[in-house]
């Protein structure tokens, strides 16, 4: 693999100044229609800042000339709940406005998606639109010529989206995907279980956090659920500890040196070791996936464990995997107990700031041979009205300007506040680095969780992956 890794990485060192004017819109948007007919009557609250809604434009195109029938093959991973329905509704609406467009929607669960997209991309036959997290994977796809630079196609409207979110999907100055969601990883916790253990306030330092874990354990409560089989949920712990201990500089140095042999990583490993020694995880956590009844989300959703380190998609999945409520309700309404959120605590003496985060977004990459309609559809999907509809589900945090306050889910408020104060959000490390390195990070972190390796050996294994990619 002859790669220009360094230049690519530097392009990816997307320091996300996410000054999104978010912050809990309260009930302001709660009455916005969520019905399928919404696009006909522009939402009363849609900010006027944007240009003519894309729907109109697409309509206009349809009126003028007969267009060749096209099918858009669209792979996404919103496989449950309200988002699954919303994506389907949007596709139907788009077809209604553009009768020559039909959709072939392929829905997969997160892990199943990764399995399925791999041979598909390797066979040089990318779908028209597919889930992307940016980072090393997207860079690989760019290098393989599987995705299309859409900078010119979207130049009219990409400015309507948060620049920080868009930058996640830029590679060497080109844009290859359009984001629809951006958020940050943090601790979701069960307030009732905290109360049972006599814990009044969430911890703000790592030592306090370890103390909380111990007190939960003493109270007979499983402190932490983690999806050890999927591995990436575990990697959040290591990533955050590195960030809190070494700050932004540490991550930049790791990327520049292409080596995890860094004091901050070693210290992070030692701190992680302290957590692991408390044996805080659910029974069988190494075989737990993220979703599912026996998964991390299931343990949280059924109130069997207290804490989960997860991104903005957490609450929706806790409700799904816990088997609560109807998909059209907000996660907090569905969950039978009260939950809260707190940022990953500071490590004493660490260089990182409490509001800096590990996070990332979801976007749709555009396949090399996708019809122009696919990009038009992305415009429709990320238009303010539709971004608001997505935000109202409480399952994602939309990135379209003017849609931020559509997030009425109260659980998201502290997360959004923290995000607004962030000066640096680092993309999940397993996505940030090339695939082989990301997988090695995940593998090695879980081995640390299982007490099967030391941080020194882990660093060696990760660096071997660096060397081979």
């Amino acid at each position, binding site marked *: *693999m*002859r790669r220009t890794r360094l230049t690519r990485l530097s392009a990816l060192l997307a320091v996300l100044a996410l000054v999104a004017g978010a912050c809990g819109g309260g009930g302001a948007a709660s009455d916005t229609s969520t019905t399928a007919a919404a696009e006909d009557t522009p939402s009363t609250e849609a900010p006027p800042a944007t240009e003519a809604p894309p729907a109109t434009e697409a309509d206009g195109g349809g009126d003028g000339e007969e267009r060749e029938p096209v099918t858009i093959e669209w792979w996404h991973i919103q496989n449950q709940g309200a988002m699954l329905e919303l994506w389907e509704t949007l596709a139907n609406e788009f077809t209604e406005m553009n009768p020559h467009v039909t959709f072939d929607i392929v829905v997969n669960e997160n892990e199943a998606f990764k*399995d399925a997209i*791999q*041979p598909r991309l*390797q066979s*040089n036959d990318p779908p028209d639109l597919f889930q992307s997290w940016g980072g090393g994977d997207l860079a*690989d796809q760019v*290098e*393989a*010529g599987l995705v299309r630079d859409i900078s010119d196609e979207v130049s009219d409207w990409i400015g309507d989206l948060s620049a920080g979110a868009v930058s996640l999907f830029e590679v060497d100055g080109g844009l290859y995907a359009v984001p629809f969601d951006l958020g940050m990883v943090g601790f979701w916790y069960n307030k009732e279980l905290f109360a049972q253990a006599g814990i009044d306030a969430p911890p703000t330092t790592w030592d306090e956090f370890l103390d909380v874990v111990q007190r939960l354990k003493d109270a007979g409560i499983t402190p932490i659920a983690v999806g*050890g*089989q999927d591995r990436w949920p575990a990697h959040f712990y290591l990533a955050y500890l590195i960030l809190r201990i070494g700050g932004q500089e540490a991550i930049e140095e790791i990327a520049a040196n292409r080596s995890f042999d860094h004091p901050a990583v070693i210290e992070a490993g030692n701190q992680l070791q302290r957590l692991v020694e408390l044996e805080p995880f659910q*029974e*069988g*956590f*190494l*075989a*737990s996936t993220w979703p599912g009844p*026996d998964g991390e989300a299931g343990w949280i959703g059924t109130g069997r464990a207290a804490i989960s380190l997860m991104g903005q998609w957490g609450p929706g999945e806790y409700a799904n995997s816990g088997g609560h409520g109807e998909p059209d309700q907000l996660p907090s309404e569905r969950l039978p107990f009260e939950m809260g959120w707190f940022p990953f605590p500071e490590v004493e003496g660490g260089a990182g700031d409490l509001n800096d985060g590990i996070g990332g977004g979801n976007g749709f990459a555009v396949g090399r041979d996708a019809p122009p309609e696919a990009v038009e559809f992305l415009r429709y999907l990320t238009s303010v009205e539709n971004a608001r509809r997505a935000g109202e589900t409480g399952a994602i945090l939309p990135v379209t300007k003017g849609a931020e306050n559509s997030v009425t889910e109260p659980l998201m408020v502290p997360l959004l506040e923290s995000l607004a104060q962030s000066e640096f959000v680092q993309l999940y490390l397993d996505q940030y680095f090339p*695939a*082989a390195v990301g*997988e090695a990070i995940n*593998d090695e972190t*879980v*081995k640390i*969780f*299982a007490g*099967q390796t030391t941080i020194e050996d882990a660093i060696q*294994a990760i660096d*071997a992956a660096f060397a*081979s*990619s």
Partner: protein
Amino acid sequence: MQTQSQPTRVSQPSAPTPSRRPLRGAPGYASWPTLAVLVLPALVVYGLFVIYPIVQSLRFSVYNWNGLGPLTDWVGLGNFVEALNSPDFRAAIFHCFVIAVLSLTLQLPFALALAVLLNQKLAGRGLFRTMFFAPYVLSEVVTGVVWRQLLRPDGMVDRVIETVGPLIPGVSEAAVQEFMRPWLGDPGVALYSLFFVLTWKYFGLHMVLLLAGLQGIPSELKEAAAIDGAGPWQAFRHVTLPLLGPTIRISMFLMIIGSFHVFDLVWVTTRGGPVGATQTMATYLIDFGFGRNRFGYGGAVSILIFAISMVLALFYQRFVLRRDVEGALT
């Protein structure tokens, strides 16, 4: 234990006739064009999809290659060295050996015992045979999905153990609780749990093989042994077992080869986890080669798996099966 491959015929058809070409018009003569029509289609398909790929992989295994684009990043034997030094790949090889050894020491005697049992004049033995063999017909995917449900924490297996355990004399409730664990989630036991499921699926195959072998043993021999005063055990030990030798050795062969091929079941139950505790050579290949876009490395791993399996199979053929057959497979 084996995956999709079918039992091997090891016996050579009766005395091989010399390949000297007979005269035109005589039996055994066919013109070259006719022969080509007969043999070439199979040879082409076989060569293209079975032989060519592995030869091809010799070429790209010496490159660092993400599967797309040209082969430029020559690494020599680097991929082979990396694989052989990788603790994960070594563990995968080891796990395959564990499954092979357990198959030989537990599954084989179990299958043999049941074969002997069903060789008795037992009412309904046809039905028993049909049922015992049935799991062999199910796919490993189905087997894995169902057993994953059964083995999950607080699943059916746990409930059964909790209920039945304390009923065993001398086993306390506490001891049962001590014994309970996440069967697929504990790195210490997951491999054994999978072995159990593999046994569930494949013992029927070996039982049927051994049963056929048993039925091929003339009953006069056993009667003669009985007349000589041998007890049932002695008759089994000194008459049946030796005569069953060839079948047992073939069963063993299938188990060893099969152990090296396990993929589907592991992939749908544990995906090689927890923390690599059930990684097999095949899951390692898919995970680390295919899944990480490392096709050059994957090619090297393929060749290593190929070499390990071939050496083992040929070794076994030469030193164990040789007694049974002349000029067996290769």
